[in-house]
């Protein structure tokens, strides 16, 4: 029971890391290596507002979301769209976006270090919370609820609204979407901005229970990439399910076998999934 609950909570944390990237790569086709830095930036906002003005991180999340949306929209519109337009092939775009977002990740680290060079450590809702006989941290539980809410909202939006359908159409094929009259650039910008907002809010929540610092983003980028790939590019269900699987496996291994093997086991699962489904759990076979 402990394993199940702790594992699900950890899975929720992972989902917060990966859902945004899935939108950004799946729809806007930007392999965003600055994803982790965007997450840490959300954490920095929470830390900074909490320690200077005692603002609850849950409140900060609502400030972070629109700001991150706007910021990511601007990044896409002015920094990435020129690359998309210039690219003659998907390979070219992949290379350009890796280079550009790697540059952005450095720039963001530089900015964050100048704001706060030490660990972003504070304590918020670090209280025991009992659920089905298992003790968990309240802040983790809240992050899990938020992850669930964001996941369901995204899923509903993508599958049951007109705008969401347009987004899915772009994720399947930019050309076909363009032919049926969808403004591909606009939809991509929106997906990228939304993805960035989800990631930053995730960072705000994660910072309540994981000690972040300005340079730690690359760890989260890696994890998010792995979860996204394991779930399958461009499917929000895939990201969530992959996140939950990883959370459960890591917790089970840590509890039953050895905590030293948690991260290694995550990669073994990742490898196993890719060996049997090279396109990820929910991925489409690439053309």
């Amino acid at each position, binding site marked *: 029971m402990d394993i199940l609950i702790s594992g699900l909570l950890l899975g929720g944390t992972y989902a917060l890391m990966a859902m945004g990237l899935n939108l950004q*790569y799946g729809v806007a086709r930007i*392999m965003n*290596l600055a994803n982790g830095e965007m997450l840490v930036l959300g954490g920095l906002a929470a830390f900074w507002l909490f320690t200077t003005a005692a603002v609850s991180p849950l409140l900060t999340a609502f400030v972070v979301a629109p700001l991150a949306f706007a910021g990511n929209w601007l990044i896409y519109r002015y*920094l990435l769209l*020129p*690359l998309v337009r*210039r690219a003659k092939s998907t*390979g070219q775009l*992949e*290379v*350009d976006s*890796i*280079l*550009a977002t*790697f*540059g*952005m*990740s*450095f*720039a*963001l*680290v*530089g*900015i964050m*270090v*100048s704001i706060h060079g030490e660990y972003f450590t504070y304590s918020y809702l670090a209280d025991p919370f009992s659920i089905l006989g298992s003790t968990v941290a309240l802040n983790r539980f809240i992050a899990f609820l938020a992850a669930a809410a964001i996941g369901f909202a995204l899923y509903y939006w993508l599958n049951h609204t007109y705008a969401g359908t347009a987004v899915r159409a772009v994720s399947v094929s930019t050309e076909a979407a363009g032919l049926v009259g969808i403004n591909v650039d606009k939809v991509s910008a929106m997906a990228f901005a939304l993805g960035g907002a989800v990631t930053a809010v995730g960072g705000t929540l994660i910072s309540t229970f994981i000690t972040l610092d300005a340079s730690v983003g*690359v760890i989260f980028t*890696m994890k998010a*990439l*792995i979860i*996204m*790939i394991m779930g399958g*590019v461009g499917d929000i269900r895939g990201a969530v399910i992959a996140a939950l699987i990883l959370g459960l496996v890591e917790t089970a291994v840590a509890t039953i076998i*050895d905590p*030293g*093997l948690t*991260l*290694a086991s995550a*990669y*073994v699962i*990742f*490898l196993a999934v*890719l*060996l049997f489904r*090279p*396109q*990820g759990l929910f991925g489409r076979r*690439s053309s």
Partner: protein
Amino acid sequence: MTSAETGKLALGAVCVLAAASAPFFSDGYWLSIATTAMMYIALSTSWALFSGPTHLIALSTGAFFGIGGYLVGSGMSDYDQGFWTMALIAPLVATVLALLIGLATLRLKGVYFVIFTLGLSEMIRNLVSWVQNNFLGSRGLYVLTDFTEAHIYWMLLTVAAVVFFSGWWVNRSRLGFALRIIGNDEEVARHVGINTAWSKVILFMTTGFFAALVGAIVAPRYSYIEPNVVFSPQLSFLVVIMALLGGVHRLWGPLLGVIPFTLIWEAITISFPASTTLFLGLTFLLIVYLIPNGFVGAFETVTGRIRK
């Protein structure tokens, strides 16, 4: 061998000799820049041997480099082995590992392959640390040798020269021809009877071998091996980025990426000591926008113009 090829080899030999004399002319500062650059030249060029023709972006440099550094550290510190023994063992271990990984990842395409190789170095670091923690124990991974910076520079130069020679050799061999076809269209390659799987795996093993060898040689320079420093995702990214900045379609492409990259990096570190990272990031962005086809592209455009 045609006379053009002999000419190329001779030119290469002259370049290597010129580079080898560098420690006699430069002070410690320029030598340390050259050593770092040489490390990246060897890594990026060997990376491009595989990723250039196959178009598969491998982020596994850190994994193999880490194995090299780690085995040298562990062997010398905990098992009292000599540097040379370990520097020999490490690349062989990495090659075998590359074989296994290569076989396992053949089906992966595009981004799936990229991310798999990225996860690899973390997995290996975790496994190695776990094994060391539970079964081997550690007195700290010290690599104390009498090598000077010049010795390390010469060793790296030798590796880089061998990498170039293998690249040149592969290009003119059947394997190189096969790879170019695979890179253009794997289906076609299969139909004309090329064993695509083995061609790819062999090149991947080559990359792994050289990365581990470089890791082993650099270990005495670092003197103390911390797993999270040698198994660095940052290193994997940097190697790829330097190679891409140069251009991967020419053997000397990565070289043209590494040298300006190292110099620009140095210039930024000196100009903005308090916010190096920020300005490095901004410079990256500028390069991507202003030099769309990498330095090789820019170079060829310029030479093309001159020829006209």
